[in-house]
């Protein structure tokens, strides 16, 4: 019974959501949005969460920066790599070494 009520509520929510979207097609709320960027950012953040404990803070931060700067920021390869490396190293030094934050070390120990 509860599941049925839940499904019905979900159906109503979806119906209204689609209706709302249709109504707003004339308005500017969803105009010109670069969805791929938003989806990529969200996927990158989820990926960071998934990989954080396995790969450790250092590597994950570096990969996060490469993705955000290179793919979304569309910077040149060497700039992306250099900036990502600088950010990863400096954030490791500030948060782990200086502030003593406890982050997962991953298989490489960083």
């Amino acid at each position, binding site marked *: 019974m509860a599941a049925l009520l839940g499904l019905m509520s979900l159906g109503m929510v979806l119906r209204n*959501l689609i209706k*709302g979207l249709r109504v*707003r097609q004339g308005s500017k*709320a*969803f105009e*010109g*949005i*670069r969805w791929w*960027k*938003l989806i990529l*950012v*969200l996927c990158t*953040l*989820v990926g*960071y*969460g998934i990989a*954080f*404990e396995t790969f450790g803070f250092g590597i994950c*931060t570096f990969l*996060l*920066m490469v993705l*955000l*700067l290179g793919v*979304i*920021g*569309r*910077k040149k390869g060497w700039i992306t790599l250099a*900036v990502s490396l600088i*950010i990863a190293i400096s*954030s490791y030094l500030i*948060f782990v070494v200086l*502030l003593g*934050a*406890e*982050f997962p070390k991953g298989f490489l120990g960083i």
Partner: protein
Amino acid sequence: MLEYVVYGFQVALQPENLLYCFIGVFIGTLVGVLPGIGPIGTMSLLIPVTFRLPPVGAIIMLAGIYYGTQYGGSTTSILVNIPGEASTVITCLDGYQMARKGRAGPALGIAAFGSFIAGTISIVGLIFVAYPLSKAALKFGPPEYFALMCMGLVVLTFLTIGSMYKALMMALLGLLISFVGLDFFTSTPRFNFGFIDLLDGVGIVPLVMGLYGIAEILNNLESSMDREIYETEIKGLLPTLQDWIVAKWAILRGTIIGFFLGVLPGGGAILASFASYAIEKRVSKYPEKFGTGVIEGVAAPESANNAAAQAAFIPLLTLGIPPNVIMGILFGGLLIHNILPGPFLIKDHPDVFWGVVMSMYVGNAMLLVLNLPLIGIWVKVLKVPYYLLFPLILLFCLIGVYSVNNSIFDIYLMILFGMVGYLLPKFGFEPSPLALAYILGPILESSLRQSLSMSRGSFTIFFSRPISLACWLVVVSLLILQMFPHFLKKKISIMNGSKV
């Protein structure tokens, strides 16, 4: 009273606290200048950092960020027509026009001096109101607290730009989220859907960081990342005598409006700046010139937002009720340090109360120095490209949210609230009622249940006590007012700062 003020200055002027105050106002100005991250995101980001600080220093720093952003936000509004903060949106109208006419210096000057004057008057008001209010609040029992918080939520939803019904829905959703976790009377798990991580409830940091930090970045990324930075020459930061003559009443009116709207639940700096601009336009002899670069159009909202930022501390420090989301974060920050804001704060922790209040005065003086002679530095900060800024903000969000409980689950929660915070405004829903209701939820629930225990289950307890009854009358009046379309139109025009 004077001895408390002296004591407050003694606490605030300790080298350690001076440093925290400086860090706070510096970060506040920086965040105010940089569009893309606001005070709410920054404060929630820094909450984990404050765990290791002494309580007075932590709150002085967090408070500094809040009123610092009010100063910093005006710089971008005036120089590049991009509001650094929501509370400085209205400053763009006349501030940028003044800059285009070559009067960027006086605009920045009047914004900083106006903020300083408003801040000073507001602190004096805070000192005189807070002490008697906290004495009166000692007479408050759970029914009064419950009624007061319900009133706060209804006032917040009433003042929200847009539909009140949608705001009420958001407030209810916020309350629901606050109920997740163990019931604090019976220790029964509630709404955790089998997730062990949710037994402690939804944390304030993932919720606020998601709703404001991540959502803000998604909003900025949805369109082009290129920002046009104009080259503006700034000369003569001191307003002329004529400017002062024209702006002095605007500053005073802005301060008074800001002070009273800041104390109101849900009021805060944003509403104060819009309302003061609208009123300034109404009382002006030349309303048609507003928007073309009149100095009152800068002085009034800038004074109002700073006065409101400081007045907002009154309900938090005296009643223990945060009037807006930012005060809610400070409320959380105080609780983390085992300090319960409320009527007992002045008696139990005079160092926190008087130290924080007096640090605001010190902070205002620091901000005056930071914002006028160092304006060139902030203009350079504006040129930091967003493609470099947003990955850093995202990284800080991830690190900040993880370090609270060392929990990956909190990262996922933050992402979820980020998506929610991004989509809600698209459908006309404001996230602020949700966040404030979530913060007030636990106190609201415990007050309700304590009241009902006192009355053995009878709801008449809420209507038989005068303070509680008065609050309910306000709630009913606001809900009835909402039904009149004429009044609604007037409210919308005031919020938009137009047609008044």
